[in-house]
């Protein structure tokens, strides 16, 4: 080994040791756990190696519910939040007066504690024996029937969760898109305006293609983030997500480990590996589809 590459290893050493210790080793560990059958946490023993943990998880109605919830959440929130963020950031970039004020307001939720705001959403949407939440009062004002969004029908709970998730992820997306829009070369716009191109046409023919790499980045990270949803659901529906029928895949992993039904690291590991396979598949599909579109 020559002197230079020895030096390079010195730079890498801290990261490599830590990555190995905290990420590579645990990853191998998760795989091992997920195949050990009847693992006993107290005695650290197991009875066999096989696919039983996976079969158990895949037949657990709570897990299937969690998968369904997670998919609904992903399919609704990713397009909605990306679309709205595009709308808002385009609006922000097209105005001059008050722009800074608007930016402050739109970016503020990014630094706030999602759990704290989740509690506010719960208060706003909840309907208890004593009182209707503010949202229900507004619904009644318009002649509608009040609904319990927190303990009521499943679609209502899903609506709140989606609404809240969109609210939480918007600031970051607006932030990224605002800066992407700012980095588009203004000469393109000038040229288009000289040619008398309409605003809609400018948007679809110049703006959108120019910021498409950033949109792709947002969609991919949005999918990954939405699949990992957990703390949003806890903030709205409390820690017993299975009882509320609002569990997510990550929530299921947590419950299997530490919840009231916890103490099953094997099932948790199997569920985590299933989540990983889902995320990896979706990310690969995303990359393939978007690569094609960006090239066009």
């Amino acid at each position, binding site marked *: 080994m020559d002197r230079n590459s020895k030096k390079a290893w010195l730079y890498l050493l801290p990261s490599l040791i830590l990555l190995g210790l905290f990420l590579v080793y645990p990853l191998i560990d998760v795989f091992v756990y997920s195949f050990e059958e009847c693992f006993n946490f107290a005695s650290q023993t197991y009875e066999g190696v096989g696919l039983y943990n996976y079969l158990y998880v895949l037949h657990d109605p709570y897990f299937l519910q969690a998968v369904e919830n997670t998919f609904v959440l992903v399919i609704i929130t990713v397009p909605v939040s990306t679309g709205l963020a595009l709308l808002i950031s385009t609006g922000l970039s097209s105005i001059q007066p008050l722009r800074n004020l608007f930016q402050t307001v739109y970016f503020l939720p990014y630094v706030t504690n999602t759990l*704290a705001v989740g509690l506010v959403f719960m208060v706003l949407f909840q309907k208890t024996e004593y009182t209707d939440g503010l949202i229900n009062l507004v619904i009644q004002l318009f002649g509608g029937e009040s609904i319990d969004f927190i303990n009521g029908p499943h679609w209502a709970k899903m609506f709140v969760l989606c609404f809240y998730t969109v609210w939480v992820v918007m600031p970051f997306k607006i932030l990224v898109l605002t800066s992407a829009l700012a980095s588009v070369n203004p000469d393109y716009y000038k040229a288009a305006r000289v040619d008398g191109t309409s605003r809609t046409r400018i948007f679809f023919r110049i703006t959108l293609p120019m910021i498409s790499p950033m949109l792709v980045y947002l969609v991919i990270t949005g999918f990954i983030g939405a699949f990992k949803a957990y703390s949003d659901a806890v903030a709205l529906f409390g820690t017993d997500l299975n009882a509320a029928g609002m569990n997510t895949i990550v929530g299921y992993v947590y419950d299997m480990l530490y919840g009231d039904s916890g103490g099953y690291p094997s099932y948790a590991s199997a569920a985590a590996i299933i989540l990983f396979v889902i995320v990896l598949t979706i990310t690969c599909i995303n990359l393939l589809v978007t690569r094609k579109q960006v090239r066009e």
Partner: protein
Amino acid sequence: MNTSMKSNKQLSTALTYVVLILGSIIMIFPFVWMILTAFKTQAEAMAIPPQILPSNWNFDNFVTALESLPFVNLYVNTGLLILFRVLCAVIFSSMAGYAFAKLEFPCKNLLFGIVLVQMMLPSQIFITPQYLMLAHLGLTNTIFALVFPGLVSAFGTFFLRQTYLGIPNEIAEAAYLDGCNKWQTFTKVMFPLTGSSMAALGIFTAVFAYSDLMWPLICNTDLNMMTLSAGLSTLNGQYTTNFPVLMAGSLLAMIPMVILYLAFQRNFIEGIAMTGGK
């Protein structure tokens, strides 16, 4: 023709403002409601029709929240968590990123591939083995436990590698000719040049550490060793229907970060904008 185009433009500008104002009301409303509710009595918070302003602006609910949770510990724990995670992530990622971008060594591509795979994995799947490791070492309920999974950042390594790739090699060569050795070139010349990227990585790491709920809940079950997020979630269990106290607690948890954001708003937006631009 000209006037119709002009009024058309005015109309679309007006429409833009309407959309932006509606949007910002939705974004800001939860905060406003949180502040108002925190000052109400329980009866006022549940009144029908809803009472918008509290009749008495007093701090009773804040006192109750402060008494139910060891807020000083929570602030200190969260502060230490953020400090250590940001420092370690920035320093180690800088070193590794520099090596990946500017130095030659065997197995470079293989190692970098491993870093990329780590980035794509959901961090939750590491939680079980990380916890078991910690439990074996008997280190649960410590600050170290909070910090430990965030000491190294695969994302940060990738991110800073991209930054170092953007710095021309001539700068390093010039430093070398001026008599710097490799380490000095890194610490005195290259490292300071990545300031804004490090700031952006620091912000990402800090916001993530601050909002992270699952790991702090798992590793530290002692209330005195929890972070703000974790502590707040236990307050939710204690005061399920006492909204004013819940809101006061939430407000207390949020205030430091909001103040920091408002103070460093410009650097914050620039720091993140820079990542978006690439």
